[in-house]
């Protein structure tokens, strides 16, 4: 529906082709678009450009004249100092480890669960589907305290997961949204292919690994990118379950660093922290800017 809607809208939108020919309409839309572009550039790009500038400017210049461009030259040492002396490298690696593990757990849970529910269709499938879906309605606030206590005293394991990455990785996997996405995608794959594979002697494992997964690259890509971004953004949960500074990700560490690191180095640390999410966005722009963002919004 989206694709057809887009192609027909490419022909025309609110303005009729005849409207566009009228000089008054043409000039007012051009003016409005120019103004909008200026506003978007200042509001969207401005703060990040300022950060980039301030990260390479000595502290005194940023404090005295925050809007001038490098009045006393560059200070690239900030970035190096942030990376080494402030140990941003360590927190950066922690962030990556947390993102990678959350990604792996989310993908494992969503892919296998979605495959079981959509393709294997177990007897209690509808019940399980319903129980997974129901968690979508539960706002994350309700989980905060009981999940924290679960991490302190997890069922069956018997030893606290506090100060281990598992405390972040495993709860990240309980994303009903991911399971739903995968399940829907798998359910829409042509079942004749499954039947053909079965005739050729493929069992459920083979079918999953050699047929379903390779056919599901688009949805795996969507889930992956959003998993990494969400993990990078996460703050409250890692702060609660990783009190040990040596294990904390950037998001948890930055507010504390602010208190005892010089401003220019701190700004360099902020700039470094934004690097990966922005790079991911630039590379996978179409994924972010298509309808998938509607789903991403639900998770908040």
């Amino acid at each position, binding site marked *: 529906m989206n694709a057809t809607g887009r192609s027909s809208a490419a022909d025309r939108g609110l303005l009729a082709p005849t409207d566009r020919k009228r000089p008054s309409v043409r000039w007012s839309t051009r003016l409005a678009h120019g103004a909008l572009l200026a506003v978007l550039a200042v509001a969207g790009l401005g703060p990040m450009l300022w950060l980039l500038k301030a990260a390479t400017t000595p502290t005194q210049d940023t404090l005295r004249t925050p809007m001038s461009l490098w009045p006393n030259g560059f200070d690239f040492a900030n970035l190096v100092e942030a990376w080494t002396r402030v140990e941003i490298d360590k927190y950066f690696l922690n962030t990556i480890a947390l993102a990678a593990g959350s990604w792996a757990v989310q993908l494992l849970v969503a892919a296998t669960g979605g495959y079981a529910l959509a393709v294997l*269709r177990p007897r209690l499938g509808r019940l399980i589907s319903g129980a*997974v879906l129901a968690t979508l309605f539960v706002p994350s606030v309700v989980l905060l305290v009981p999940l924290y206590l679960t991490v302190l005293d997890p069922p069956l394991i018997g030893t606290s997961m506090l100060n281990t990455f598992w405390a972040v990785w495993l709860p990240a996997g309980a994303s009903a949204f991911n399971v739903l996405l995968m399940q829907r995608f798998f359910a829409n794959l042509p079942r004749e292919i499954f039947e053909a594979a079965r005739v050729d002697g493929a069992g459920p494992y083979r079918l999953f690994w050699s047929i379903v997964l390779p056919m599901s690259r688009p949805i795996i890509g969507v889930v992956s990118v959003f998993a990494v971004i969400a993990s990078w953004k996460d703050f409250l949960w890692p702060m609660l379950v990783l009190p040990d500074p040596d294990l904390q990700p950037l998001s948890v560490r930055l507010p504390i660093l602010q208190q005892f690191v010089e401003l220019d180095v701190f700004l360099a640390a902020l700039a470094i922290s934004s690097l990966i999410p922005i790079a991911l966005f630039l590379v996978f722009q179409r994924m972010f800017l298509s309808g998938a963002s509607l789903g991403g919004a639900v998770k908040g």
Partner: protein
Amino acid sequence: MTSTDTRPAGVTGDRARPRTAARPGRRGPLARARGGLPTLVFLAPMLIVFGAFSWLPIGRAVVMSFQRTNLVADPVWVGFANFQQVFADPQLWTAVQNTAYFAVLALLFGYPIPLVAAILMSEVRRFRGLFSALAYLPVVVPPVVAVLLWKLFYDAGEDGVFNTVLGWAGLGPYAWLQDADIVMPSLVLEATWAAAGGTVIIYLAALTGVDPSLYEAAEIDGAGVWRKLWHITLPQLRGILLVTFILQIIGTAQVFLEPFLFTDGGPANRTLTLLLLIYRYAFTNSLGGDYGAAAALSLLLALVLTAFSVLYFRLTRSWSGS
């Protein structure tokens, strides 16, 4: 079908096929594997992770709100005492008011702006990707980075970033985060900056879905741009406007990061929100975590928000079904 359950899935008994074919449609071609070991293997990660980190904690949230728990002694049932304690806390009403104020301001700032931007952008013919990328960029900036950066922008001194810019126009300086009257709008301004791009993209997708023949029909009747906007575009967006409204209520009711990092609830509790209060009950209590009160308040908030979630789900499902 029970007999097939024990059969190893790799063994494809040819006799099984006619049986599945006898019940067409209802089961998939892999029906013989249903309930077998492989199915269990595939279900296991989901069942374990959801069981331990979603279903169990949800149940525990309900139980805990009726208990006194401090992790050391065994939990004690206390009936509605936690709820009574929460309702007797004068800070609760401060937090409810502040959260509602944040939500209303977020609607005032964050509702019309993305709509206007999206309607303008939908008429852009060239470089539309540039427009949407610029609008969406703040959404991918890590929220902690955004808040810490804006904290600098909001510096109260004359040399603060915003005060410098406003000073060019002879305004200010303002104490963005210290002045009790403007601290909340300051927080909402940052939150809107961080979130508006996502809403713009949602509206853009909805706008491209408006049937052009509706516009053509209106033009035949002699409708101008503004009348088309009012009588076709906006009514066509009614559903998605309701959805973003609900999403925004659910999101803003759980606002935590901005008040926590910008002001830690201050000045004088003017930015103490519900989630910040829950956090304080549970994690910064000098007497040890008051998990019962925190769970009780979470549960109350969740009940209200769940109603919104259900509404959201019903709305979106009825569309995708049609």
